[in-house]
């Protein structure tokens, strides 16, 4: 079944590699001859959208990526951020959308494996993971199968590897029917003086292959991730990669042990397009050539060709440049962990990427140009037209209490407990806040007081209505979730999931979302230090909702002072911070309209970044000063849902005033931005110096009911049963 090496290069073959005729011409101009079959494979891997970012690079450059806290921004395996005391947090988010649609368990599992590797390649021990998932409408025949497979896959890998999953997102919408999104985030800890990079240094040094053996898994995977789905999808199946979390855990321990020994000069994990991308990157970054001898590569299948070895996406592998005098020591560490260790090449000074197999030179390419000369496009785009404003007639009225119960039990607002209970959220013994909180919080080992907070956010409905405001909002909501837990947001990572960039309206979404993200990150001092772009999320011409997921990390200086969502006690005053006198006004694209009335209409809420920052800084200070007893940001579903979540988490009820001169629907379900609900002992608000931040006392905690204004009281138990009920009932439908 193996593919012979001497295959004539035809236009069809070039097209099958996802290379456009002008891109192929670029290859011919660059090397001055026809590429060999293996070389064609190498180019297709390096120049596809996934690896080269050819459609997005121009726009990614506009994002803010630096700040005094940033040690390493985008361009390495993961971003590195200072958290004081010589410690750093290293993190990134990455998509595994297409593979997860084809084989949900393995697709999601290998997605988690890939992002963990990105983090520990840099010398960090992973301490937290998140997963942001988007599925088609619940009634779609594939949805349950995909949910159950993806969740089992995320858990299957992360639990076995041993990293706590502390947060994430799950959302359903018909626009993901044919293209689900699986975005995985991981963060690790490393000392600032023990970070490892991929830049090779020194000529004539051994290039070492580490980890698992190479098979034919995912040959052509990176090419697939850059292609739009069509009916031929069935034929693309055999490229499925299988994850082996046990080997990954051994690889983690072996790598950290090896790094501590001082033997590592440069290291790079093999992700998309495996050996090719990792070798080229290590060489190109260090201004060195690389020479590989494929006969030395540990393989697990017979008669593998050079082409297959260069493009294999077998998991749990790394490439390293080693200090030759420590070879024996290094090999012993890998043997102890039962892993492969093989010297497969060396660094050279000729700036060529030369690959040998069975005595033949199968590739000889200019190493820098493989990356640097990749095509870059300024794809045409059109400015998105924000949706028209709503009129009163667009907004159906409803009983506030009934609406709240229903909203809490709707597919997109119900509790995700069914999901996160399949994840190990406690392992490592440092989890301070588990999923269900505004942010997952993990204690920092080696420090008495420090903790890190994590959140992942985006509202794709806002982004569809207005990519610019939606992009701003994704950043602001993430920043707000970190703030609500008491953390100072440090930096973020993005996972930009969009449709086909060759369509100007999709490209327009992309351009404007990035504009919004950049602006918000600048205004909030929340630079982007790593990220990933996933384009072509489109099936038969229907694109997904624009979904720029933002993953954020914040620092809590003293975790005994962090805030939780749950009400702390009865008889405390409930403070609404950052809201207008009418409390809420904005219902465009709200959960109220969408989940209860099936209407995805109206403009996205506007994010006033100055207001956002001022309000957040104020809230964070109140938390740090120990003044507030509970804290929650207001997002989907508005004030009513936020208060209900605080009640459900604590089992304590609340009574909220009736807003003056305002529509109760907008007041309770409006999704105006930059707002928080806090609680504090009675009389606290009156004594606060608010510095112009709006603080209103809107009610009191206590009892067993939640009562919103003039609406009837609903028991916390009823709210909880609605909130907890939908997901298990939905998934149970799978087997009946």
């Amino acid at each position, binding site marked *: *079944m193996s593919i012979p090496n001497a295959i004539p290069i035809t236009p069809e073959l070039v097209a099958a590699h996802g290379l456009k005729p002008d891109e192929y011409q670029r290859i011919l101009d660059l090397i001055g001859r026809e590429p060999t079959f293996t070389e064609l494979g190498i180019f297709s891997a390096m120049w596809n959208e996934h690896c080269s970012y050819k459609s997005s690079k121009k726009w990614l450059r506009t994002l803010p990526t630096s700040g005094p806290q940033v040690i390493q921004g985008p361009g390495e395996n993961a971003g590195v951020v200072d958290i004081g005391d010589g410690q750093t947090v290293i993190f990134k988010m990455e998509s595994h959308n297409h593979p997860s649609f*084809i*084989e949900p*368990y*393995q697709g999601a599992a290998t997605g988690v494996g890939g992002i963990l590797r990105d983090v520990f390649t840099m010398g960090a021990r992973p301490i937290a993971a998140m997963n942001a998932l988007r599925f088609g409408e619940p009634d779609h025949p594939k949805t349950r199968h995909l949910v159950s497979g993806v969740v089992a896959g995320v858990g299957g890998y992360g639990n076995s590897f041993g990293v706590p999953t502390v947060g994430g997102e799950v959302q359903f919408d018909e626009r993901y029917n044919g293209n689900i999104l699986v975005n995985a985030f991981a963060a690790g800890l490393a000392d600032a003086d023990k970070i490892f990079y991929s830049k090779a240094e020194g000529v004539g040094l051994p290039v070492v292959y580490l980890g*698992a053996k190479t*098979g*034919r*898994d995912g040959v052509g995977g990176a090419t697939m991730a850059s292609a739009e789905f069509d009916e031929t999808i069935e034929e693309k*199946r*055999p490229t*499925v*990669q*299988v994850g*082996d979390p*046990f*080997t990954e855990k051994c690889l983690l321990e072996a790598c950290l042990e090896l790094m501590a020994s001082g033997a590592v000069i440069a290291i790079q994990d093999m992700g998309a397009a495996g050996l090719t991308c990792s070798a080229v990157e290590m060489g190109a970054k260090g201004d060195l050539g690389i020479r590989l001898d494929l006969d030395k590569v540990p393989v*697990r*299948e017979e008669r593998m060709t050079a082409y297959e070895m260069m493009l294999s996406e*077998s*998991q749990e592998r790394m490439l390293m440049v080693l200090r030759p005098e420590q070879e024996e020591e290094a090999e012993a560490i890998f043997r102890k962990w*039962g892993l492969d260790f093989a010297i497969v090449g060396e660094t050279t000074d000729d700036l060529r990427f030369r690959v040998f197999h069975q005595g033949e030179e199968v590739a000889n390419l200019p190493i820098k140009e493989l990356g640097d000369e990749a095509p870059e496009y300024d794809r045409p785009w059109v400015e998105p037209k924000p949706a028209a404003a709503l009129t009163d007639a667009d907004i159906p009225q409803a009983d506030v209490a009934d609406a709240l119960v229903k909203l809490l039990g709707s597919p997109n607002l119900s509790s995700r407990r069914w999901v996160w209970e399949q994840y190990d959220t406690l392992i490592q013994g440092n989890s301070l806040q588990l999923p269900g909180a505004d942010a997952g919080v993990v204690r920092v080992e080696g420090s008495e007081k420090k903790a890190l907070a994590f959140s992942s956010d985006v509202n794709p409905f806002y982004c569809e209505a207005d990519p610019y405001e939606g992009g701003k909002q994704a950043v602001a909501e993430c920043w707000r979730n970190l703030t609500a837990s008491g953390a100072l947001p440090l930096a973020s990572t993005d996972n930009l999931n969009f449709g086909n960039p060759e369509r100007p309206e999709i490209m327009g979404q992309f351009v404007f979302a990035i504009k919004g993200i950049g602006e918000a990150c600048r205004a909030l001092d929340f630079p982007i230090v790593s990220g990933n772009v996933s384009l072509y999320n489109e099936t038969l011409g229907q694109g997904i909702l624009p979904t720029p997921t933002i993953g954020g990390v914040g620092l809590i200086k003293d975790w005994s002072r962090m805030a939780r969502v749950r009400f702390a006690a009865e008889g405390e005053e409930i403070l609404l911070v950052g809201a207008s006198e009418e409390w809420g006004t904005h219902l465009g694209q709200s959960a109220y309209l969408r989940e209860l009335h099936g209407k995805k209409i109206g403009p996205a809420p506007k994010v006033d970044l100055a207001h956002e920052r001022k309000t957040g800084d104020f809230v964070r200070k109140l938390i740090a000063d120990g003044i507030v007893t509970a804290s929650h940001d207001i997002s989907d579903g508005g004030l009513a849902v936020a208060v209900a979540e605080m009640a459900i988490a604590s089992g304590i009820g609340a009574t909220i005033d009736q807003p003056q001169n305002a529509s109760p629907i907008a007041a309770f379900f409006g999704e105006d931005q930059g707002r928080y609900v806090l609680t504090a002992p009675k009389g606290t608000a009156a004594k606060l110096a608010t510095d112009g931040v709006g603080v209103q006392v809107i009610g009191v905690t206590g009892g067993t009911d939640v009562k919103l204004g003039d609406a009837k009281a609903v028991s916390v138990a009823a709210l909880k049963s609605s909130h907890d009920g939908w997901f298990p009932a939905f998934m149970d439908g799978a087997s009946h």
Partner: protein
Amino acid sequence: MTKARVIVTLKNGVLDPQGKAIESALGGLGFAGVAGVRQGKVFDVVLEETDPAKAEEALRKMCEQLLANTVIEDFSISIG
């Protein structure tokens, strides 16, 4: 009643971490000369259907829809 046995195995080339781990464990226990292990699943199914051809047809459908993950697995059915 029909008793049937369904065997589900990984397709060629698909990584089998379990088989690999077992292979090396056997080596560790002193069993020399183990050249390969692949792990699969077996389902012993009892059907009320008595016609073997109909039973086999039903089992094939069960395999395609549930018992096997045909993206990465093959299956075989034996009746009786």
